């Protein structure tokens, strides 16, 4: 089972790199927020897998809870921020449409 968890973790890291690609090339700001949110969810699971690999799941569960809470608050905060800074978003969209 040890090598199975290792392979699952490596596959998750590859999928995280692919999600990072969307966060890098995303046309709008909201695409980047979405990519960051998905990477955070995968990190929550990956921390649990690391805990299984090191035979110390009791410690890594707490880190995972903290990361899930942080990811949720960060996504909500970024979304609210760009809702208030409407002018910044619209300027960026107009630039992309004109270019």
């Amino acid at each position, binding site marked *: *089972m040890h090598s*199975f968890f290792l392979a*699952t973790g490596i*596959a*998750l890291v590859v*999928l995280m790199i*692919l*999600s990072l*690609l*969307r966060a890098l090339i995303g*046309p*709008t700001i*909201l*695409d980047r*927020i*979405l*990519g960051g*949110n*998905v990477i955070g*969810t*995968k990190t*929550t*699971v990956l921390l*649990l*897998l690391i805990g*299984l690999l090191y035979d110390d*799941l*009791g410690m890594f*569960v707490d880190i*995972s*809870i903290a990361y*899930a*809470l942080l990811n*949720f608050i960060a*996504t*909500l905060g970024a*979304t*609210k921020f*760009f*809702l208030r800074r*409407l002018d910044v*978003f*619209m300027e960026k969209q107009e630039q992309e449409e004109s270019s």
Partner: protein
Amino acid sequence: MTILSILAAILILLGLFFFFAGTVGILRLPDFYTRLHAAGKCDSLAAMLMICGIAIYNLQPFSFAALLISLKLFLVAAFVFIANPTATHAITEAALVLGVKPWKRTEKKRP
């Protein structure tokens, strides 16, 4: 290999499949709302399946401490299942207010 190990492996592989499908959707779909649809699957269902699989595997040498850790893991799964759709809903509302245009079939260019 006990029955619990096989059940945990099946749950983890299912979760990995849904993560893969969600990531392919995030990379390939044409506009923001469809990508959000793919990411919603990836955020709620796949994460819950994988966390439940890890919790079931952790129960194996049964003890009280392992039971407490598994209970905590099921609480993480419940929190992820509530919080991530809320975050997805908030992003959708922001996109609607900011005026991101949906993709139409007639448009040739794929953003």
